[in-house]
């Protein structure tokens, strides 16, 4: 059963659907490899299911929306043999949780029904797996039975059009805030006839009205790009997203004089795009987050405390590092020890600090302000 928690539809809350597919039965390397799929060049994955389980685990133990707690969560996973699913999720996975066409279709129908119970609801969708793309906003997720020979002449029976589902839920009777995280490759479909019609694909009647529902879609990669992952670990997008949610790096305060740090549509856009680019670049890859759907303001999560930030302090290479020391002060109070070993790495609460930089020769002191913001801040002395 994909339902991991007892569903409670009596009160408004958050409803989630999480799908992660690493093991593809009919693709190259799968249990029942179908030779007709080999030309697609799609192989087995090893981090999609784990990534989805990490997200599901965070929803259970980290997600915080006062008045709108998690009230249902459906999880469908197809893990590779060497992949480790988050234990909190693994413990609850009972029965058939394979992300096949039949299971995903039913899970989506149930998920949509749950979301429609209260307009105040929040809907959260996270999917990871192979994907292809047909339009700028498009993302088709290939399910674990994609390529099944029984889907003869309807190649996309084992696939779900995520953009169409986003449009299906884009109506006033559904959850007022929806967050769609689509962690998949967005390679262009290799078969040109598919641009005309995706035979057999899972989609429902779509809403044509112009609603005010917030339904941002965060694509882990931009058009034509590959979404990368660490083998038998998590995807790069997931690594960044989870740090953003768990550590509060993706949060900001957004209501005047309210100290609550919130993860919102806007803060996710501001955080995810540079953070994913940076982590991919550090691994010699290129991956850029795209934002689609209706990216208007909505809140996904409230942090219980302000985020801490990894701070790296260096001395300009043209200067003698032994000549420098620095103190950080927040609200007039010194924070941590004097920094005098370079590069200095420390972790401090996000804020605007007064930095007192002292030099031995000539004896001098420089004072300046420095904004230390999540996820990381880098400061070079002397301050400019």
């Amino acid at each position, binding site marked *: 059963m994909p339902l991991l928690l007892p569903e409670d539809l009596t009160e408004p809350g958050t409803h989630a659907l999480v799908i992660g597919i690493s093991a593809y039965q009919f693709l190259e390397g799968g249990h029942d490899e179908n030779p007709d799929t080999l030309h697609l060049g799609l192989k087995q994955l090893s981090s999609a299911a784990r990534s989805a389980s990490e997200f599901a685990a965070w929803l259970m133990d980290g997600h915080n929306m006062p008045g709108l707690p998690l009230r249902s969560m459906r999880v469908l996973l197809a893990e590779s043999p060497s992949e480790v699913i988050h234990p909190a999720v693994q413990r609850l996975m009972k029965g058939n949780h394979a992300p096949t066409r039949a299971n995903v279709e039913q899970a989506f129908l149930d998920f949509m029904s749950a979301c429609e119970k209260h307009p105040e609801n929040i809907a959260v969708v996270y999917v990871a797996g192979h994907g292809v*793309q*047909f*339009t*700028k*906003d*498009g993302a088709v997720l290939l399910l674990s039975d994609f390529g099944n020979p029984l889907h003869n002449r309807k190649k996309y029976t084992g696939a779900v059009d995520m*953009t*169409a589902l986003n*449009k299906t839920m884009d109506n006033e009777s559904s959850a007022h805030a929806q967050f769609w995280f689509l962690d998949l490759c967005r390679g*262009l*479909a290799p078969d*040109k006839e598919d*641009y*005309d*019609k995706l035979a057999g694909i899972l*989609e429902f009647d*779509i809403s*044509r*009205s*112009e*609603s*005010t*529902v917030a339904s941002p879609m965060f694509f882990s990669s*931009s*058009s*034509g790009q590959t979404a990368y992952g660490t083998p038998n670990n998590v995807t790069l997008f997931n690594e960044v997203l989870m740090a953003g949610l768990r550590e509060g790096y993706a949060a*900001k*305060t*957004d*209501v*005047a*004089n*309210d*100290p609550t740090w919130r993860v919102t549509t*806007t803060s996710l*856009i*501001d955080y995810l*795009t540079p953070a994913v680019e940076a982590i991919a670049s550090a691994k010699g890859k290129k991956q850029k987050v795209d*934002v689609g759907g*209706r*990216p*208007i*303001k909505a809140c996904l999560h409230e942090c219980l405390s*302000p985020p801490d930030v990894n701070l790296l302090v260096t001395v300009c290479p043209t200067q003698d590092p032994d000549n420098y020391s620095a103190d950080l002060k*927040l*609200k007039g109070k010194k924070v941590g020890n004097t920094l005098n070993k370079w590069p200095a790495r420390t972790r401090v609460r*996000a*804020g*605007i*600090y*007064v930095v007192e930089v002292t030099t031995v020769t000539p004896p001098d002191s420089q004072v300046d*302000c*420095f*904004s230390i*913001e999540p996820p990381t801040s880098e400061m070079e002395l002397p301050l400019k």
Partner: protein
Amino acid sequence: MIPENTKHGQLKVQVKSRVNFGGAATPIEIRNDDLILIISTSSKRIFELPVGIYEISAVLEDGKRQKQTVKVTESETANVSLEPKLPTQPQAPELAFKFLSAEQIQSLETPTQDFKLIGASSNVTIYPEDGFWIVRHRQEMEHVAYAIIRKGHELFEVSLPISAGGHRLSVTCHIKTSSERPKSHLQISISQSRSLSAALESLFISGQIGPAAKLAGRAIHTLMNIYVDPTGVILAALILKKTGRLGAYLKQLEKLSTDFPWLPDAKILLASILMAQPNERKRAIQLAYEASQERILYTESFSMLMSLLRYAPEADNVALCQKALTNIAKIAPDVDWNSIYLCRTSTENSNA
């Protein structure tokens, strides 16, 4: 709560911008030393604040949030000035004869040049300057202008965001013809002289849809009635569509598609709104079909048209819908979805 004996100081903020009434109406945010938002305003620029450290920020027309930290003291007014960091662009010459035809540009090309012009739609003229081609349209528009450009073995056939307009010298675009990196993409941007449209473009590309939508609402009127810039209006409409606010601009869309029949993007946007009304679906599909036969300007419009047709209700004019979808499905596999302007890429060896 702020204690009664708290000392206060004055902060003056200036936003140097070419939009939002010279920055006077640009939304700004002020955060305290805990980075907690304390003030969010579009109109106020002078503040009495408790003495302390603050961060002032605004999303400007370069598509980025510009920030500055400042210390507010009791003794003197703290001044903050925020301005966009726009890339340098050469200005278009005032005299139209300085613009050259595509053929003249081709004759000036050197073997070391990164980008080479292979062709362009009629009446496209170009002024080469400082690593850019400044592109303008010589006559009234009959269809969306385009250029065919080669870089290495790659060919780009790209729609251009230009129009004749009432002030034709300023309705130009810039194509960057030199690149620092060998793998850099073709860069086409609305000329900065079209400040409002250029701002919408930067905000759209950077994903700053919230600030873009605030600007787009006002831009529709300005770009339709004051500085006639139909390709800029389409961009504003695409942004409003993304935020679910385009329905309120139905009259303007009707006028846009009537006044600028050469711009199929207007028909697509109009069709997307009409599709929501069951009694207007036949017309919506007719508009979509017409648009599918023409050169489209924005990739976003092209994608919207494809979705509109693919997800069209079965009962409505299926045959016309299918014909339209067939028209654009032929192009779709070659579309560069990362380009804001509809761009078909191919290699010179391919038959595409």
